[in-house]
């Protein structure tokens, strides 16, 4: 197997196998900095791999990043992989990345919902849920972003198994969600939780399960707006910033609500660009521009996290 990322086409959509191979290659090429950890396996027994970026040292604070919890939002997995290459290749040359990784670790889950991702490549391009089955039901899967233990079962999630926003039988019923929850609880020192979705250009912070402002509203709003401005500066893509409830809709059982209530103050969700017409069916020639602008937003938040320990 060729052990180099230099020929990998970041401007194309790839199969799960191809993404996992690229992650191996990245870990091999930057072996002192990047390692690949398995944090669990999906319902259909596919590994859940996290890339760990670390310059060493025990018990360091860390930033969590995940992408593609809704399988069909392919630009998010592609953006995550591009971001991984960016972080690895610019450590030691880019002052911001260097200082960040000299202070903190980064964990990046490139494909959060691998079963759904494979299903969207082979059977149904519009698939968004997991692929878990329940006895006595014809319908498959749970919306993994309605399955977290944060206002679980409340408004903006469905109890109907066939619905695209079916919340599941109980919080953390999906092994993909539970694996992340367990990893973060066991780590114990995660300071930011950033999740990458795609649709309608939004940067959101808690809450979604209730329409009240979080205790850190002022700071989160300031950080979010600064990140959105940084993002916009590259290609002019405009992002709206606010709580989930005020920018999109009330939705219960979402990941950043759980992470915030768990004590991770800097919890944000990105909804990447869609041109206003294609949704998550973004043409491949927009992957790299999307990743580039998203990186500026991510970097802005990560720098704030680095400079504001708590």
């Amino acid at each position: 197997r060729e052990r180099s990322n230099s020929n990998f086409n970041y401007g194309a959509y790839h199969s799960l196998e191809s993404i996992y191979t690229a992650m191996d290659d990245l870990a091999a090429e930057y072996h002192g900095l990047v390692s690949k950890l398995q944090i669990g396996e999906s319902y259909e027994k596919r590994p859940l791999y996290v890339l760990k970026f670390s310059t060493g040292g025990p018990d360091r604070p860390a930033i969590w990043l995940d992408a593609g919890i809704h399988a069909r939002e392919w630009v998010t997995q592609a953006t995550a992989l591009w971001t991984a290459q960016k972080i690895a290749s610019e450590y030691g040359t880019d002052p911001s990345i260097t200082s960040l990784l000299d202070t903190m670790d980064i964990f990046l889950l490139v494909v959060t919902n691998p079963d759904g991702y494979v299903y969207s490549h082979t059977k149904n391009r519009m698939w968004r849920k997991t692929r878990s089955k329940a006895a006595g039901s014809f319908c498959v899967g749970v919306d993994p972003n309605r399955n977290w233990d944060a206002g679980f079962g409340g408004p903006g999630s469905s109890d109907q198994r066939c619905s695209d926003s079916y919340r599941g039988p109980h919080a953390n019923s999906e092994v993909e969600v539970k694996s992340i929850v367990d990893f973060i609880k066991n780590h114990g020192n995660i300071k930011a939780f950033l999740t990458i979705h795609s649709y309608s250009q939004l940067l959101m912070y808690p809450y979604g399960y209730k329409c009240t402002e979080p205790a850190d509203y002022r700071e989160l709003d300031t950080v979010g707006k600064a990140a959105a401005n940084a993002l916009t500066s590259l290609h002019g893509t405009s992002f709206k910033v606010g709580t989930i409830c005020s920018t999109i809709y009330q939705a219960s059982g979402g990941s950043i609500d759980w992470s915030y209530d768990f004590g991770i103050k800097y919890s944000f969700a990105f909804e990447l660009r869609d041109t206003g017409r294609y949704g998550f069916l973004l043409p491949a020639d927009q992957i790299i521009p999307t990743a580039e602008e998203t990186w500026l937003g991510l970097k802005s938040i990560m720098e704030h996290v680095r400079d504001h320990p708590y």
Partner: protein
Amino acid sequence: METFSGDQVLRIRASSDDQIDKLQLLETLEHLQLDFWLHPSNPALPVDIRVPFGSLQAVRAFLGYHDIKYSILIEDVQGILNEEKQEMISNQR
């Protein structure tokens, strides 16, 4: 492989809370097999729905009857998927 020939994505602009309620009702009609890309929440935000070809007539009639404004965001979902597939084949080459 499921196909989406003739499926359309509609962008709906509700003008009142009453229209939002109507769209929330639409969301519960499972036989229409609607895929909400943006769920109805308040009139300031659009609602995007992928409507299977077989449900288009019913949904348009519903919107027309309740005087809810909409535009077509994607004319034929399968058309975009075909372009995407071609792009992937060419990338693999």
